[in-house]
């Protein structure tokens, strides 16, 4: 049975990420700073973005221009995006100053940085599908940058249909997948120890 792919995958998962690691009820004593809150705040803001985005998707991109409820949901979407970036940037800076890539956590940093870039792309397409003056202006201005390096041949910022599909389907899927992988990696490796924390053997070697 052990040659089954399913069994192999399950065994690997259980070895690397048992439920106690995935959902622990304790943490190292050094996890005691407000900076640790910004990761979960970023995820919470992402949750509000997705929730408000789903409502906007059901009603269509022009709904909020004419409906009070639509305007409110659009505002939720707008402000949760602003908060999402504030939290994420603080989280990113925090992890930088903690050199949080130490101890085989390079991939955790890389997925986090890619998630940041994917978030910028997702938010950018969101600004393009507002169907208002701002999206007219941004699409006219932004096309030159993308065209200048050949990307505009396929990524057409003036094409509302393309931007809408990328914004509500493709990019959230990519961002969601990277975020899940990022969080699983954090849980698998645990929270990075303090920079100046020393292993006992190292302290002894110095004496």
């Amino acid at each position, binding site marked *: 049975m052990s040659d089954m792919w399913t069994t192999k995958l399950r065994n690997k998962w259980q070895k690397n990420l048992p439920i106690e690691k995935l959902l622990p009820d304790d943490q190292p004593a050094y996890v005691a700073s407000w900076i640790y809150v910004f990761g979960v705040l970023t995820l919470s803001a992402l949750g509000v973005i997705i929730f408000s985005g789903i409502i906007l998707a059901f009603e269509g991109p022009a709904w909020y221009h004419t409906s009070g409820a639509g305007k409110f949901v659009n505002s939720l979407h707008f402000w949760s995006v602003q908060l999402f970036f504030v939290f994420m940037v603080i989280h990113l800076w925090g992890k930088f100053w903690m*050199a949080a890539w130490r101890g085989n956590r390079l991939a955790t940093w*890389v997925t986090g940085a890619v998630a940041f870039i994917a978030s910028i792309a997702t938010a950018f397409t969101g600004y393009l599908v507002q169907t*208002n003056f701002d999206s007219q202006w941004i699409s006219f201005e932004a096309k030159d940058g993308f*065209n200048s390096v050949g990307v505009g041949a396929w990524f057409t910022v003036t094409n509302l249909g393309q931007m809408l599909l990328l914004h509500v389907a493709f990019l959230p899927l990519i961002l969601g997948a990277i975020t899940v992988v990022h969080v699983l990696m954090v849980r698998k490796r645990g929270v990075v120890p303090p920079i100046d*924390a020393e292993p006992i053997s190292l302290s002894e070697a110095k004496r």
Partner: protein
Amino acid sequence: MSVNKELKHEFDAAPWKGKTKRYDFIKEGVIALVFVMVLTIGLSVLMGSPDEKPLTFKGWAVSNSDNFYVTAVQELAGTSGTATYGAPYNKASDGLNIGPLWLQKWVGVTRPIDSVNDFVINPLSTQVLSSDIASALATWNAAADAQKQAWATAYDDAITKVEGKLSSVPAGAYGPVPALAKGLTDMAKAGALDAALLSQGGFFQTDNTKQILFFGDGAYLDDAGTAANLQGGTWGMMNETGRYPGQAWLWLYSFWYQIPPFNNEESKPIGANADAYIMALMGVLSLGLILIPVIPGVKSLPYKIPIHRGIWRQYYEAQGIKRRKK
């Protein structure tokens, strides 16, 4: 790797064996979610969100009909921004380059736009026209390409010569061009051009490229952008209409447009190709962000500037750990 570094790496990588404390992830997550929801709802109720009405061709033609008229002539003469753009819309220019890399030109025309027909002739053809405009359209359609170009160029040049003052344009061999431009201006004033440009005679349409590009060829969109403080040269990329925060996360992208040589179009090769150079630069910097942990110098900054002493202050104090000398 030295023995000390190796030991430290193993220590950082291994599961934590030291002191632990209770930590309720679910409770933390729920509190964070409630906090963000309350904050979001509060901001939404207090501030709302930006929603400036989109510009229309009707608004342009009514508020600045001369500028619209002149732009229509430029579309016919092939001298507008769109007509002379290059890839991906046409082959009128080579576009921008980064040294020997002519990426814009190399990808070719993938979104073809014919400013004469797409912007002027086709939309006019969808309308029930007055006899003089219909006659002008018939004359245009029956003429040879060289003749059409000669008429439109002559009229465009004449307008340029009198600096856009239409009443001062002398009589000349302009053929049906003035009538076609007037016909399109009247069509726009009546509010019929927006939909005609989008549909191009079809039914379903979700691509606004032609409308947006035509808009950009005149002064209407540009003036509105300036009035809303959205121009690229004044950090417009990260601004939003009204008193709302925009895409502040694009600050670095926007930053390059504020400084030389990027902000000087006359400066070759970089300023003249600023869009391409800045895109490439941001691509490199984005890659740099991803690879910070392996970039010498940058990866050492957290050790040299000890902000971590503040982050882990409680732990360091409790353990009596002094700052390590690297």
